[in-house]
């Protein structure tokens, strides 16, 4: 037991240590390969690779629900095979024939169509498997690091949302308790109204507070505003600066920024 669990832990550690960008490249490589091939052997190999990576590096703690992969896959492949058998009447290996008069599905049912459906279903579940492995291996807050600079604000929105999420869940519980104390019971859809409306209003009130906090920390300061600030600073510093220059203040001070404070007391002595 111990040996197996140790290797799994080690693999998970390696997976967590990887940069999310590395995971994204891995995902892209796997997904593109899956999409470009229709060779069932390659697809099965890719499926095996992604499943192995998922079981070894996937971190399932904290996720309450995860997709029952094999069950979903079975349904997808089965559906794909049946759909293609009924809709595609290609190939020469006829299994049996449906009457031609049946709309759309009438015609010979062939083994080739079934094989085609199987490969299609296989490529779909392989793709699914790669994405599942990716989402298990990379924690959400690191996925947000993948957001490109151009979408910085949308990344911020996502971050705010993820931060607010637990608080919202708590708030919802609090409102429910408060309503229960007042004797309001949730009966049907209508019962949700006194919970959802306060939740939304409370959320918006907090969002306005958050916006104030953001603005006070300089968020959304436009370029012209910054320029103006710099200009104002320069303007108010201009007179003392000129005065200093006119006094023949040592040029050293202006060049070595950090040196000038200790030099200051002596500067008058030096210039005198």
């Amino acid at each position, binding site marked *: 037991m111990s040996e197996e669990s140790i290797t799994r832990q080690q693999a998970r550690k390696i997976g967590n240590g990887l940069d999310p960008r590395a995971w994204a490249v891995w995902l892209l490589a796997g997904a593109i390969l899956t*999409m*470009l*091939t*229709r060779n069932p052997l390659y697809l099965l190999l890719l499926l095996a690779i992604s499943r192995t990576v998922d079981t070894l590096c996937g971190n399932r703690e904290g*996720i309450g*629900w*995860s997709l029952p992969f094999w069950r979903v896959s079975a349904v997808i492949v089965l559906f*794909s095979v049946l759909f*293609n058998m009924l*809709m595609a*009447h290609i190939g020469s290996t006829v299994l049996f024939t449906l009457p031609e008069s049946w709309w*759309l*599905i009438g015609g010979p049912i062939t083994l080739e*169509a079934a094989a*085609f*459906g199987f490969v*299609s*279903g296989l*490529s*779909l579940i392989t*793709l*699914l498997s790669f*994405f599942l492995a990716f*989402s298990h291996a990379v924690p*959400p807050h690191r*996925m*947000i690091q993948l957001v*490109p600079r*151009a*979408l910085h*604000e*949308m990344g*911020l*929105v*996502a*971050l*705010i*949302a*993820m931060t*607010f999420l637990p608080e*919202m*869940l708590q708030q919802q519980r609090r409102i429910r308790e408060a309503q229960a104390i007042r004797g309001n019971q949730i009966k049907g*859809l*209508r019962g*949700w*109204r006194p919970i959802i*409306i306060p939740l*939304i*209003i409370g*959320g*918006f009130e*907090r*969002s*306005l507070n*958050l*916006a104030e906090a*953001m*603005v006070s920390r300089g*968020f*959304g300061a436009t370029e012209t505003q910054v320029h103006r600030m710099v200009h104002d600073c320069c303007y108010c510093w201009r007179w003392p600066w000129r005065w200093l220059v006119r006094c023949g203040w040592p040029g050293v001070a202006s060049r070595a920024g950090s040196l000038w404070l200790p030099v200051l007391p002596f500067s008058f002595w030096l210039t005198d």
Partner: protein
Amino acid sequence: MTRSEQLLGGLLLFLASLVGVVALLLPFLVPIAQTTGGVTSTLRVGETPLLMLVLAVICLAILLVEFQGSRTNAKVVAALGVMVAGTAVLRFIEVAVPGPGGFSPIFLPIIIGGYVFGSRFGFLLGAMSILVSALITGGVGPWLPFQALAAGWVGLLAGWLPRPDNPGLQLIILVSYGFIWGFLFGAIMNLYTWPYLAGDPAQTWQQGSGLITTLKSYVAYYVATSLVWDTARAVGNVALIVVLGIPLVRALGRFRDRLRFEATTA
């Protein structure tokens, strides 16, 4: 914002949406190109879904950048964050306690948000809600860009709905909008799995079969896979909007002016 900038923005939006529509309709466009111009398809096996995915990602990125805008407003960012969190909570509940069929409560805030705060907010709300809730529930998949686009369009078009003063009329408009999107969302999301299940139109049993055959089999596919699901989604949307729609519109309306308010330094 000057008039020309507005026009340019509109044009960009139009082009980006066109890219998205082309991406989704690619399985139908390839047979047309094959049958009409005598164009021999240069697409190899498996390239249609790849092309669709790449186009959808590009379209989504352009729309997000365009809607996010160059001028940042802290209040809009914060409000979006909170609304997205609320929608993600609903998605969380949906995943934990699955409703009947394709029923999903997330369309209610997206529709109402777009309706009250306008199409820009609506698009961002829809797309970001899908993206964030996918991160949280582990629903990251190849369907994600399509889902985000479709949900964004739900919010975008909700912003263009007429706003009569009469709450009864408002309710009728919102309810029918939710009902239509229940089916439309399913039809759009089906398009993404379509080239896998029905085969690549470039080089399969469908080669040279033309648009009509493709459309016919798509209808069969739609009826087989999602008609029941989509009906549940549409009915769920209607029920949620009837019960919560107008109170939500009123509650959000109170914040509309406060979000727009902005102090500028002259």
